[in-house]
C-alpha cells in the first residue's frame, strides 16, 4: 500500500501522477522529450535501454519493467537480452557507443561526480556526440528522480513481467503525453 492515500489504485508512477496532475505534466513532458522525441540521434530503443539500466541499478521494479518492455519493443529483442544488459552491458552485443554511454549512466546513478573525463572521452572515441552525452546524463539523472518518486511513495507494481511486455506496443504508440493515466 502506498505511503499516502492517492485516491486511486493505479500502479507505479500513475498513482501519484493522477493524484497530482500539476507535477505529472512536466514529468511526462520531460520523459517524452528525452525518451521519445524523434529529433534525437539516439534511437528510442537506446534511450529506453538507458532508462531501464538506471532503474535496474536503483532497484525500481515498476520502472525497470515498464521501460525494459519499451526497450524490448523498440529494439525487437527478447526479455533475456534486456536482463543481460541490466546485469552486465559489456557482455552483450550492443554497440561500443552504447556500452560507453551506459557506463556514464551507471556512474550518474551513483553520483554525478563519478563521471570522469575518461568516461566522456571513451564515449567520444566511440562516436558519441556532445548532445548524446548530454542526453545520456540527463536520462540517467531523470530516472534517479522517477525511481525515487515511485518507490519513495511505496506505490504498487504488477508482479507479472509479461503484463508490461503486453502493454508496451500500445503505450509506445501513445507516448508519454497524450495517454489516459487510468487505462
Amino acid at each position, binding site marked *: 500500500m502506498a505511503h499516502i492515500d492517492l485516491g486511486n489504485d493505479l500502479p507505479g508512477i500513475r498513482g501519484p501522477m493522477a493524484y497530482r496532475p500539476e507535477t505529472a505534466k512536466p514529468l511526462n513532458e520531460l520523459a517524452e522529450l528525452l525518451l521519445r522525441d524523434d529529433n534525437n540521434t539516439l534511437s528510442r530503443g537506446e534511450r529506453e535501454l538507458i532508462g531501464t539500466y538506471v532503474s535496474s541499478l536503483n532497484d*525500481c521494479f515498476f520502472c525497470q519493467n515498464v521501460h525494459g518492455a519499451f526497450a524490448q519493443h523498440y529494439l525487437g529483442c527478447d526479455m533475456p537480452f534486456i536482463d543481460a544488459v541490466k546485469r552486465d552491458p559489456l557482455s552483450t552485443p550492443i554497440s561500443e557507443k552504447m556500452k560507453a554511454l551506459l557506463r556514464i549512466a551507471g556512474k550518474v546513478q551513483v*553520483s*554525478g561526480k563519478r563521471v570522469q573525463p575518461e568516461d566522456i572521452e571513451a564515449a567520444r572515441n566511440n562516436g558519441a556526440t556532445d548532445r548524446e552525452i*548530454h542526453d545520456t546524463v540527463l536520462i540517467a539523472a531523470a530516472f*534517479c528522480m522517477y525511481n*525515487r518518486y515511485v518507490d519513495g*511513495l511505496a506505490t504498487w507494481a504488477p508482479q507479472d513481467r509479461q503484463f508490461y511486455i503486453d502493454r508496451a506496443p500500445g503505450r509506445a504508440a501513445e507516448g508519454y503525453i497524450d495517454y489516459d493515466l487510468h487505462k
Partner: protein
Amino acid sequence: MPHIDVHNDLPGIRGLMAFRPEAAEPMGALANILLRDEEGISRAERELIATHVSYLNDCFYCHTSHGATACQYLDGNKALVDQVRKDFRNAPISGKLKALITIAASVQKSGKAVTPEQIEAARREGATDRDIHDTVLIAAAFCMFNRYVDGLAATTPSDLSSYDARGRQIAERGYGSHIFSTFPIPVSEVAQ
C-alpha cells in the same frame, strides 16, 4: 570546465539548460510548481528541503544557489540555512519540517529507504498527504538536478556573492527560461 561544449559560459544548470532549452522547459516548470507552490509547505521550507538534499548529494552549485534562494525568504538568515544543511535536527525549524526533511533525506539514499514510521512521524507533526507527496518529489527531483549539474561537470562560480544575486532573482521571478536567457544579471536586480 563542463564535460561537453555547451557553447556558453553560464554557471551551473543554466549553462546546460541553454545548451538544451527543450529539456529546460519541463524542468523549469517542475521547479516552479514544487518550489513556488505555497500550499502546506512554504517557499522557504521547500527551498530548505531542496538545499538539504543537494547538500547530501554534495552538489555545491545547487545547495549554494537554493540555499541563497531560501535565504531570500528568511530575511537573510544565512546561519539558519547553513544549520539546515548540516544539522537540521537541531535547527530552530518546525517539527513538521524536521519530519519532512527526514523523509527527503531517505529519498536521497533511495526511495525504498522511506519507512512507514517516518511517514507516521510527519503526520503526527501535522503534515498532510500532499505535503508528503511534494516532499518526496522535491527530494527526487533534486536527485535529478544535482546529478545533471555534476554529471556534466557544469561550471561552478566560486564567487559566492553571485549566488545571492541569483537567489534574489529566483525569489522575485521564479524559475523559467529567464534563468539562462538573462545573463549577466540585469543591473537593476544586482543593485537591489
